[in-house]
């Protein structure tokens, strides 16, 4: 449990790709600050944004909603958005809400960058 961990740990730039490392529990408590932090990844005009979920232990619908907002924004800007390294618990909420077919979800960061 890590409810007080800032959700965005780092934004790494690999060429024109912004890799956003998230951590902790992405719930109602974290999602409001997460939205502003995620939008920062678009400031430098990336061609692609990869959300690295390896250190996210839990996500609820408010976290999913935040990612849906980011998806909407990236589509308008013509930026590719990928979700990488999500664990089974996080994947389950995307499956329950049928959003696993809306987002591009990949197993590894290398796959996202390929």
């Amino acid at each position: 449990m890590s409810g007080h961990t800032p959700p965005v740990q780092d934004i790494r730039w690999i060429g024109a790709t912004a890799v956003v490392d998230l951590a902790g529990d992405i719930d109602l408590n974290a999602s409001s600050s997460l939205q502003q932090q995620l939008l920062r990844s678009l400031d430098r005009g990336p061609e692609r944004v990869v959300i690295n979920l390896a250190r996210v232990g839990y996500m609820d619908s408010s976290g999913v909603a935040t990612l849906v907002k980011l998806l909407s924004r990236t589509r308008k800007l013509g930026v590719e958005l990928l979700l990488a390294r999500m664990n089974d618990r996080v994947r389950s909420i995307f499956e329950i809400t049928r959003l696993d077919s809306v987002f591009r979800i990949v197993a590894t960061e290398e796959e996202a960058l390929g």
Partner: protein
Amino acid sequence: MTLPLGKPIRLTVLSDPAHLPLVRCMVERVCEMAGFDAAGAHRIMLSVDEAMTNIIRHAYDGDTHQPIDVEFSIEAHDDGCECLRIRLRDYGRREDPARIRSRDLQDVRPGGLGVHIIKECMDSVQYEPAEGGGTALTLMKSIPGKEQMTS
């Protein structure tokens, strides 16, 4: 260790999002004690979390100092089935139960997913006005291996 029949576990938490991780821990532990596997416990935990989030947002309009009563119990039915029953009770603004429904998932947009998640993960979801104000939400889930114990 298992949960005994007829001995509810009750707690009251504040409507503060910072308390949600603690409630999730408790729900997951209670589910494990009731006999759910990790995946089943996670789905129940997710349902309770979504219900708590809805109470904080809608019944209490984000006020972080209001009470939410949580009660866990094991119910045995006549057919031998045993269910985990979770009751969440708030004292806030009531919503017409007929208006509490899932939205069309084909419409990809933020928000409105909580009720769908709760209904997808639980066997039974019942909203009703609570005596003295507020709403009581009762969630039920059959315990694996105890769906039909008697012939």
